[in-house]
């Protein structure tokens, strides 16, 4: 089951560029939270701070505290431990090109040293079912390479891969931006189903998408979080003038 996230005074730099400034928010457990804003506003950097992926770039730097459940991820744990609890789905589908579909899904466990094949079989099946890919690939799980699937299928494979390690939080960085409308709608349906079990944070540049899948929405602008509230409130009656301008399409 998912856990909540509490972010306090989060600041992030990319070189000398101050990409995130004083972010404070509480992301509720077992719901979908959407982050919107014009490109370059820091929303992607923000989710990458939640599983410490931001710091994989040598010139990146972070300060502040992030609590996932009751774990202070920047002080009480190493990045690999955090990333095992916080799954991530990237903007472009990135299955491992040398692995079969089965191995792609099992990779998070196998590469961490898990060897029980009976359990692996079960987990692969369930993860693929939960990502709505099972019916399409069940016949050639070990025959086909993950890279041989279509773009939308690849992205659902990546979701299955993230689900297989049974994460508490699922981060999605514009998961549908590289996909066609049909695949996009499948991904949105998936988010809709999964959010009862996982805490989902989804970055999107597509406001309708945020409105369709998320309970809560945060609006980012120039590295600051302008407003964070229930999705309904953000889209019908925002407090801040800048949010209003953005969602009515007056800029960005």
């Amino acid at each position, binding site marked *: 089951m998912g856990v909540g996230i509490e972010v306090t005074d989060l600041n992030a730099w990319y070189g000398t560029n101050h990409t995130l400034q004083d972010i404070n928010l509480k992301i509720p457990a077992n719901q979908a939270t959407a982050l919107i804003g014009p490109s370059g506003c820091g929303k992607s950097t923000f989710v990458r701070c939640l599983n410490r992926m931001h710091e994989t770039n040598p010139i990146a730097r972070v300060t502040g505290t992030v609590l996932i459940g009751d774990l202070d991820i920047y002080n009480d744990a*190493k990045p*690999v431990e955090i990333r095992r*609890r916080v799954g991530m789905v990237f903007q472009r589908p990135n299955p491992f090109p040398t692995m079969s579909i089965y191995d792609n899904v099992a990779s998070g466990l196998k590469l961490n040293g898990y060897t029980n094949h009976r*359990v692996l079989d079960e987990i692969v099946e369930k993860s693929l079912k939960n990502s709505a890919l099972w019916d399409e690939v069940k016949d050639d799980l070990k025959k086909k390479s993950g890279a041989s699937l279509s773009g939308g299928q690849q992205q659902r494979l990546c979701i299955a891969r993230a689900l297989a390690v*049974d994460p508490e939080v699922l981060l999605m960085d514009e998961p549908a931006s590289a996909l066609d409308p049909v695949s996009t709608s499948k991904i949105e349906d998936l988010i809709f189903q999964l959010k009862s*079990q996982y805490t989902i944070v989804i970055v999107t540049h597509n*406001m309708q998408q945020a409105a369709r899948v998320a309970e809560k929405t945060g609006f980012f602008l120039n590295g600051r979080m302008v407003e964070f509230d229930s999705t309904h409130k953000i889209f019908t009656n925002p407090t801040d003038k800048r949010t209003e301008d953005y969602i009515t399409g007056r800029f960005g």
Partner: protein
Amino acid sequence: MVKVQVPEIRVSRPKVQIEPAAADAKRVAEPPFAETSAVRKFLLARGNSAIMDGTFHVLMVVCGLSIFGIVILIASELVLRSDLAWSKIGFSFFYRAYFDPSTGLPNYWDPVNGHFSAIPFVYGTLVSSLLSLVLAVPLAIGVAVFLTEMCPGILRGPLAFLTELLAAIPSIIYGLWAVFVLVPLLREHVNPMLVKWLGWTKLFSDDNPTGLGYVSAAVILAIMILPIISSLTREVMLAVPHSQREAVLALGATRWEMIRMGVLRNARIGIVGAVILGLGRALGETMAVTMVIGNTPEIHRSLLANGSSMAAVIANEFAEASGDLHRSALIEIGLALFVVTIVVNAIARILVWVVTRGTPAQAH
């Protein structure tokens, strides 16, 4: 508060409803894994593998540093083992020779009587290498120009492949071919013509019936370094931005003027680098030269005479060196070769890098 106009679709299911997707949506997600706790427990129990990561990182750094290690190792071994020659002969090894008092002729290299001077080898190396550059550079640039600017697309692949292959042929095979094909050819047909037409320069005299010598060495060296120079020149020319060519063409230039002003002028530093790299190869080339240069430690004005080179004398005499001083002198020649090739290659790399930086290496 301003009431914002919100389009009606905002908080609703997607308009694009696709049937299979909808069917999927209706299916409630599977309940959480029965093994949830097992998997999670397992992952939580895994350490952060900081020790493995640290060890791995250090190992890879050590592998990277081994490159420096090799250079230091070679340098220190060469310095250490040539110590005897340094102390007995000193730096005059490279410029002073022993003159036989009875004949008044120089006796450069006489291991039996303990006379050692590197002059004939340095001379042979320089003459054969420079001569090979004279032969190879115009041809190499011609080939590079042809390949980048004129070649029909269908020929480009095979020619590039051939060039690559030639750079990979071992020098022993070039040497073998030179001994049995090139040298007889030069001896029978080319050398007599050189003597006939250019004999007046006294650079070509017909007193060497073997056909071995500086010219043979230079020709085989030219064939060997051509692929290196032309493929690097080609890379440098490809790195010249297209806009440069277009700018010159837009002024109404012919193709040659475009190549000369738009391409060669911009790439000239890199081309010099490619030539120097070729020189580096020629200076250190061992087997092919050893097989055709004649291996006599003498200096002759005639380019058709037998000579020797730094690498050739090491290859020839090292295994059967007649004593410690002989071996030490050979190692000193090796050290000189090492230092010179390091410097030459470093200069060449820097020049090529200056031109190609910023453009990713072309996969040919």
